[in-house]
């Protein structure tokens, strides 16, 4: 499945909902599906700075594709992180680097993020790209 395909799926899921409460309920519920991050990965260097609560992200190259691990104590950031990971997990580093990853805007979630900066969504996206960039030779 390509990033674009998964993105379309997420957008479709959110488009049906017309109020913030339902959208965020999905975000929150999605967060519950994030697999637990292995303890040894929850180290300082994997903390994403710019989030008000502690958010962790790390990745492994698995053959040609990247596998992501994440954790957040708070549920809303965890949900956003889960959606982001769903988008890029199992994808090639160069595809991730090139992707726009603006699904949150397209799905109408970002409009509802008046605390966008506090959520650290931008920091999460940037961190995902940085993880992928580590494996891209130029």
């Amino acid at each position, binding site marked *: 499945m390509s990033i674009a395909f998964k993105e379309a799926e997420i957008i479709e899921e959110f488009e049906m909902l017309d109020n*913030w*409460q339902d959208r*965020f*309920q999905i975000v*929150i519920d999605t967060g519950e599906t994030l697999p637990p991050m292995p303890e040894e990965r929850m180290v300082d260097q994997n903390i994403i700075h710019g989030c*008000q*609560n*502690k958010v962790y992200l790390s990745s492994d190259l698995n053959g040609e594709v990247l596998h992501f691990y994440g954790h957040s*104590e*708070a*549920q*809303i*950031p965890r949900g956003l992180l889960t959606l982001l990971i769903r988008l890029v997990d199992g994808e090639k580093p160069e595809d991730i680097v090139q992707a726009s990853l603006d699904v949150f805007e397209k799905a109408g979630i970002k409009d*509802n993020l*008046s*605390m966008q900066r*506090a*959520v650290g969504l931008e920091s999460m996206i940037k961190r995902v790209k940085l993880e992928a960039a580590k494996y891209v030779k130029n």
Partner: protein
Amino acid sequence: MADKLDVMKIREDFPILHQEVNGYPLVYFDNGATSQKPRQVIEAITAYYSGYNANIHRGVHTLSQRATSAYESSREEVKTFLNARSTEEIIFTKGTTEGINLIAQTWGRHYLKTGDEIVVTAMEHHANIVPWQMICEESGAVLKVIPMDQNGELILEEAQKLIGPRTRMVAAIHVSNALGTINPVEELIAMAQKVGAMTLIDGAQAVPHFKVDVKKLDCDFYVFSAHKLLGPTGMGVLYGKLSNLEQIPPYQGGGDMIRSVSFSKTTYNDPPLKFEAGTPNIEGAISMAEGIRYWNSLDHAQVAAHEQDLLQYATERLKATGDYRIIGEAQNKVAVVSFLLNGAHPYDVGFILDKHGIAVRTGHHCAEPVMQFFEVPGTIRASFSFYNTRAEIDKMMDALAVTKRMLA
């Protein structure tokens, strides 16, 4: 009814309160972070800039004299507000943080030696921890901490043990921003005086709620920020006994703080100007005084009764369901409730409350050691002002019920 605070009338003075946020009428419960401003304060700033803006202490022209006299009469207002002995004891700063740093960097740097001890409490704001840590590192002095109990009250027997012959400074928070506790600073000051130590009281959260009398407290230094007391940001006060202010070296160098300058020798001005280098925050001082005048115009017994009613009501409602854990249950509290929704991260709760137009503070409130003590990642803090109402607390409780469902 005459004996009750007329909250609806007061609210008319605060333009910002009359708006919708995210489609709901704003409920502003983040007064501990900064208070809202009455129109009198906002108008004072406009009046200054549109009527008599000029630099102070340096011109003979009329505008400069008007600005200077307004600036200096603000000092008079603050002097009366704190019941200081003279205006020389009132130093204008940019806030609580600068006031504490000023003392740490001047008095601290000059007098502290290896092995000297600075005593703070377990519930300090970072502003009353880090400046001391910095000067301790420089001087070899040591920071000691008076512990608190599970209610969020200081353990005075421990304070008694900690404050001893090596203590040079006791720097204590008057009212905890994270817990609402009103500390028995009178007793800490008495302990410090017995061993000849200096005292500094962080009054940032005290002056917005009750009358403070520095002469009665008999502390050496008292600091607060204007923006938490109906006034502007970037403005604050450091009170110091004149005898101390004369002894300690100046803070920053520049204009206004000097008597004469030559390349071979500079002599310093007297306090308070000795500590106010450069062009100060003129409109800040003027509008701070206006905020104090507004505060003075209120009946403080009515304000206290109203705020205590809000505190009690919010506490009761939060306790009624068993869904919340209140952090900080001291006997003596200002109108601040710090709490957690069981099973939820404070951050998520703050987010969903904001969606309902309710402004609360979430996080560690610049008091990480307090969060570490209670072993929580942070709290949700509703801090009330005299312009808040029970009806607003009801709205918060309704929004919390939705929050609970969403996060379950």
